[in-house]
């Protein structure tokens, strides 16, 4: 397994794969509803001028989350991100 970090630590321009969303409370379920599920590729697009929230891109759309929510999302910190924020988005998974 690659070492994992939380999504709020990933700088803009990077693209990573989601490993897990912490917890099983309503907020975790809502994040799941929004597409933040394990295996999904997510790009960090940019932070707001005041530093929070951040725009992410996943499943073919852009979503704003505050740090308090993105800190619950564990992502793979492998180098497979390669900063490839410009690749096609919308793929639910990478090949295993």
């Amino acid at each position, binding site marked *: 397994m690659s070492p994992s970090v939380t999504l709020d630590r990933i700088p803009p321009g990077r693209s990573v794969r989601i490993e897990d969303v912490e917890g099983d409370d*309503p*907020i975790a*379920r*809502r*994040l*799941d*509803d*929004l*597409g933040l*599920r*394990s*295996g*999904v590729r997510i790009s960090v*697009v*940019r932070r*707001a*001028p*005041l*530093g*929070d*929230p951040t*725009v992410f*891109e*996943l*499943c*073919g*759309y*852009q*979503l*704003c*989350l*505050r740090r*308090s*929510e993105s800190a619950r999302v564990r992502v793979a910190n492998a180098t497979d991100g390669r900063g490839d924020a*410009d690749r*096609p*988005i*919308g*793929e*639910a*998974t990478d090949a295993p």
Partner: protein
Amino acid sequence: MTTIAAHEPGSTPAVGEAPVFGLLGSPNAGKTTLFNALTGLRARVGNYPGVTVERREAALDLDGRRATLIDLPGTYGLAPISADEAVVEHVLAGRIEGVARPDALVLVADACSLPRSLPFLGDALRLERPSIVVLTMLDELVARGGTVDLPRLEAALGVPVVGVVGHRGRGLDRLRALLARPEDWTRPAILPPADRRERAGWAESIAEAVVTRPPERHDLTARVDRIVLHPVWGGLLFVAVMVAFFQLIFSWAGPAMDAIDAVVSSLAELARAELPSGWMADLVADGLIAGVGSVVIFLPQIVILFSLLYLLEDLGYMARAAFVIDRLMGRIGLEGRSFVALLSSYACAVPGIMATRTIPSPRDRLVTILVAPLMTCSARLPVYALLISAFVPARAVWGPIGLQGLVLLALYVGGALAALVVAAVLKRTLVRGDGLPFTMELPTYRWPTFRVWATQVYESAWAFLRRAGTIILAASIALWFLLNFPRVEAPPDLDPSAARAYALEHSVAGRLGHAIEPVIAPLGFDWKIGVGLIASQAAREVIVATLAQIYATEDDAQDSLRAALRADVDPRTGAKVFTPATVASLLVFFVFALQCASTLAIMRRETNSWRWPAFAFAYLLAVAWGASFLTHRLVGALVGPDWLS
């Protein structure tokens, strides 16, 4: 249409002769655009009982077959995480009185983000009601170079799938034809898995099979956002847009409001000339016509506000504006989208409160509604202008900055600070968060369509007239009666303006003014100010005309009113009525008190109960009384009564 293996009869409820369709989908899936495109302007708009969630339904005529379409509140999943979200669950179960249980479901999903929505679609199919799937935003999918294999999606889900472009009306004929025959809809041969993880796997495999080319990032949006969301330019653009937005409401609405005012007063004069003189003529002229005028006067602001608001929203900028300002609003427990509503309230709380509809969290929306009256609306300006020009010396403090301007600025800032403090307090006490995380989609930029935009503006204006206008009209007429009855004959030796002052003192409102004097005396107010406060319940600026009537001066000669206010003495003590302490106290009272029947009416309409307007009125009155009392004491101790003379 692909035919799927026949479903076992009896396992799904039959659809009635006049089917009820529920439109189910996530907030930005284009549900409401689709609803409007299908129903035109026939929607009945209301609220679900007990919550501030809007309820919309409309009758549909499908080739002679009658049907009902219910636009369910947008939701990301069927497991509700707040009381307000539970509305969807309750409607689907038929548990809400007066709302028919949907026999069949129209599941709406954005074609570009289909992989996200598939688990939700799977969940909805597990409800085992006849369903179809409508994929929206096909134009955007194509523009971004994406393709979705609709026949394959139809085969995988087991229900009919239609692609539409709601705002252009494409695909609607096929959808209408399908809606006319819900009995013929195919049903899934196998239901999607119930377990969350298994369902995610099910969704993933379908997404892989049907999303033949995932859409690229929207190129124009990415390029525009590099400027619009830029750390420096984005912030500056936000300020510029908000200043322009506010300025346009003020400067464009002004002439229209003056014109309405002129028409209303000439109509009132006409009525007075045509009707035999007496109280009936007064009622028609000053009660009825002026009452209708007090409703219509809001229309320019409402139409302009919503024209701009929906233009920015349809373009895709509103979400960006909220994104830029979210961090600051987050500090007081609200979110970016509350900002625009509060800013609009500077012009008038009525359109400001209506603008809270863009806030998805009902709790945040409620708090924004409750503090909106604290923003200094334009109706306070005539009151501030009268008192400041009469009592604050026009002397320079520093360079071109005068004392009068500083006092006015302090009143504006005071209102805004109070709104922020109250919002923070309410979010920590009475209206705690509903556990909803802040999540907001950034839509791609698109040119607004005139029809969609015009429909939204028209619906807002019409909703105001029908739902709040009637209450405002009734309140104005009731206040007219208070100010004019009982009619007491004035002694014959009085001149006309003194006779009008005499009549007012002996009206119900005049007597009420005397009755509340003990309560307002600690604030430095006498009965005459009391009558003004009662009359200003119709609208804040009415206190100016009422004081003019009490002091028996001409309405439009403010110089004489100012002189009369300055000269007035208490008949018992011989002391000045308007001391610095009293003037300061009255100004502070107007910063806080909710003296506006129209705001109460629109609060009632937006929160669907009298509970919240009553709460807002009570808390703001208590704050106003307390703050005025302290101000009166403080200013009285700091400056002597002769400071002004």
